[in-house]
């Protein structure tokens, strides 16, 4: 339901963080009921732009911004996000801001509860009004229905699957009857594919009812599916703008990075893989939502072994189980010797390293600089980057080595930062993710587990990250076990790919096999045993 009424008008907005120019001069308009897709590389300034519109204090604390924006023709002056809320802007952040012990209803209406008058109000003020639970439930159900999702208003948030939490957050913005413009900053990054679909459908419905939406995502097909118009942000400017119908993912991706992008290549590598490095026998892992029910596989030394499959089938449980993060049982042989399970410390000492799929527990020290973040674990675990004197009595940090190592990875992964001394907190979401990878690399592990390494990373940088993994594997002969929900990604770097279905390995295939073969394995339609591998 698009109309010509302009809800938001952005005029020449610019922003720098202490000299680091992030936005130069951005101007665009959003009409009533229109869905705008905002894309751009990691660190392009998408979140920054949204934070400006939403009046977040971090913007003022870092020197404010230049330019103006208008809501329904009125110039906006926000000193806090509450002003933005009053003006009709709602924002769903990347991290959840829900109270775990409250129900969906209580969270949706947090601090906007329906209340009834009573005698005490005259004496002690409005805060002693009574909650009107019935009306609260009605309003919550109303907001949920607008989203057209299946969400129990009485369910406690702590007991909800991730997707439902995201819906609760969005329902909260909907209940604000004043919300005219909804900002969704990577709302699908934490969702499974099927949840993301529901979420896209819900957003479409809202737009039909007249809500304007700004949608940020790195999944371009999602953006094209949902949005009426796509804006691409690069080097602080809007470099591309198009109706969704008139463009395609490739064109968008190319304008994002400013060069042409090649498809992932499925190059079969002519590597001789001989020695067995890791043997997994009948592994069971009790990871809630990703239970592994007896998998068998062998990984060769120097191999890149991919693990794929649909969400919730157990692919993520394998790495988590071997690393001892969830209780597991079965046999894992490393270089022919059985290693004890459920003992993370021991496994790390053996030379294993893990980059988890859990974006909230990424394990960055947010108030420390990048170089420190990259080298810290290696320093702790292997006493690298340390110079010793007097037979180890005196230990000093080798700052030169630390710097060198950090600069190496900043270059290799193209971490967008002002210097290696920039605090992790001041990095964009995707660049924080790259620092995590660098941290694992710096450990010099014998075997590296990475789960969803490119989630939240832009299309251009995806290739970069995958190439970095590949290069790293080729140069230092390190064995990599990569878990991902994106098949193409797995096919572009893995030597072999195991597909997990219902907690078991449905088959192991080389990447050259057609995508349909993988697809059949994922949905449990076939049980081909790839290349003599036992299922």
């Amino acid at each position, binding site marked *: 339901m698009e109309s010509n009424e302009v809800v938001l008008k952005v005029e020449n907005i610019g922003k720098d963080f202490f000299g680091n120019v992030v936005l130069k001069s951005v101007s665009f308009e959003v009409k009533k009921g229109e869905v705008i897709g905002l894309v751009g590389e990691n660190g392009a300034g998408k979140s920054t732009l949204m934070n400006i519109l939403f009046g977040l204090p971090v913007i003022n604390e870092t020197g404010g911004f230049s330019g103006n924006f208008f809501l329904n023709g009125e110039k906006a002056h926000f000193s806090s996000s509450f002003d933005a809320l009053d003006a009709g802007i709602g924002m769903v952040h990347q991290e959840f801001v*829900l109270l775990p*012990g409250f129900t969906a209803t209580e969270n949706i209406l*947090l601090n906007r509860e329906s209340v009834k008058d009573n005698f005490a109000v005259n004496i002690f003020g409005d805060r002693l009004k009574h909650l009107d639970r019935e009306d609260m439930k009605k309003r919550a159900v109303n907001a949920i229905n607008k989203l057209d999702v299946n969400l129990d208003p009485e369910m406690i948030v702590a007991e909800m699957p991730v997707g439902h939490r995201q819906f609760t957050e969005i329902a909260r913005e909907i209940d604000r009857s004043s919300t005219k413009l909804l900002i969704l900053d990577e709302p699908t990054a934490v969702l499974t594919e099927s949840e993301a679909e529901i979420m896209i459908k819900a957003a479409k419905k809202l737009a039909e009812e007249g809500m304007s939406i700004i949608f940020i995502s790195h999944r371009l097909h999602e953006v094209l599916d949902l949005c009426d118009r796509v804006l691409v942000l690069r080097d602080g400017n809007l470099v591309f703008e198009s109706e969704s119908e008139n463009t395609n993912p490739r064109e968008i991706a190319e304008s994002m990075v400013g060069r042409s992008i090649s498809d992932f290549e499925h190059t079969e590598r002519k590597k001789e893989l001989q020695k067995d490095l890791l043997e997994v026998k009948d592994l*069971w892992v*009790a990871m809630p939502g990703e*239970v592994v029910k007896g998998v068998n596989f062998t990984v060769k030394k120097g191999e890149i072994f991919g693990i794929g499959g649909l969400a919730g089938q157990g692919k993520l449980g394998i790495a988590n189980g071997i690393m001892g993060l969830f209780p597991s049982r079965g046999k894992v042989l490393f270089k022919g010797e059985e290693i004890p399970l459920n003992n993370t410390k021991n496994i790390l000492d053996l030379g294993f390293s893990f980059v988890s799929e859990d974006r909230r527990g990424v394990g960055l020290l947010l108030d420390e600089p990048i170089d420190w973040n990259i080298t810290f674990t290696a320093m702790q675990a292997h006493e690298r980057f340390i110079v010793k004197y007097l037979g180890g009595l005196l230990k000093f940090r080798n700052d030169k080595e630390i710097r060198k190592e950090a600069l190496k990875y900043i270059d290799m992964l193209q971490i967008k930062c002002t210097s290696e001394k920039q605090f992790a907190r001041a990095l964009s979401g995707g660049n924080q993710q790259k620092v995590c990878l660098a941290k694992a690399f710096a450990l010099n592990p014998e075997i590296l587990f990475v789960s969803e390494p490119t989630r939240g990373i832009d299309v251009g940088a995806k290739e970069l990250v995958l190439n970095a993994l590949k290069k790293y594997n080729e140069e230092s002969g390190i064995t990599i076990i990569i878990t991902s929900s994106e098949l193409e990604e797995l096919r572009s770097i893995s030597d072999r790919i195991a597909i997990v279905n219902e907690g078991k390995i449905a088959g192991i295939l080389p990447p050259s096999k057609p995508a349909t073969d993988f697809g059949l394995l994922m949905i449990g339609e076939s049980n081909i045993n790839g290349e003599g591998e036992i299922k």
Partner: protein
Amino acid sequence: MSMSNSEKVKKFLINNTVPILFVVLLFFAIPLSGFSPEYLANEMITRLGRNSFLVLALLIPVMAGMGMNFGIVLGAMAGEIGLIFITDWGVVGINGVFLAMIISTPIAIILGFVAGLILNAAKGREMVTGFMLGFFMNGVYQLFVLYGMGNIIPINNPKILLPRGYGIRNAIDLVNIRQAFDSFIKLKIGDISIPVFSFIIIAILCIFIVWFRKTKLGQDMRAVGQDNDIAAASGIAVKRTRILSIVISTVLACYGQIIFLQNIGTMNTYNSHEQVGTFAVAAILIGGASVAKANISNVFIGVVLFHMTFIVSPRAGKELVGQAQIGEHFRVFVSYAVIAISLALYAWRRQAAKNREIKAVLDEQNEAIENRGGSQ
């Protein structure tokens, strides 16, 4: 997801370890002590009337996520200052009690406000801070009562002034208001006398607490109790809400101490409030409350179990080891022990809940293994 009966029982036992321990203890100690049921009933009723109000004062800060408020000692001090004044002025009876409450309310509000400010600065360590605050304010109180009263603040009654002309005596006879509340409405059933009016006041407080939970402010406190940052992000004035919870608790504790002392009838100017926080916290923990969750039933169960233990154990101790001189020291010892154990149990219980979740998944897995083993 339904739980099997045995699991339910297990969960109940785990969640109520402390009260169950005390019930078991009393099960043996009561017969050993040889007290008559009438005597015990009488004692229990007196103590419920005397102590419940103070313990109820702990409930609201728990809601706001501030743990057990050892700061109620401050409220007790405020109440005592009110009692000093009305004794000086010679106001008698129930009017005296109410006047003491009126005088001490602003003092309690100010003290509660200051305590709230300090506890806000010590987020995450509220209990220890509150405990230390009690010690510190005890010093200030002593200074005020020992040097300020009769000096800067006019006190004329020679019965409560030290012979040197300023400072308050160690013990004050509260004869003017002794049991003014308790005997305002008299009721005697057999040999058991019931302080009806005190119970009415306690009932009103309970109704207030239930009512309060349903208000917007109550809901805000629950929100703040779960996560300060999220509550703040939704626009709730977190600091203000936390301070309010402490102010309410301090004012209630002030009334609680006045009710307590009118029943006792004498006031140890410098000691009466000392263990107020410890005893109240121990009682509510014995009643099955935890740092994060406490309700009205915890208060009454706790007061009954806690005080029953102190009535019967000296006698039971005498029967057992021939020693009755355990008295006050024993009580203090048990209180601290209970607090320490309850806190440890709380931490352990949270761990156990986590483990149970993991075990449920493991069980499912074992079952599957067994099934498969059969088919192989």
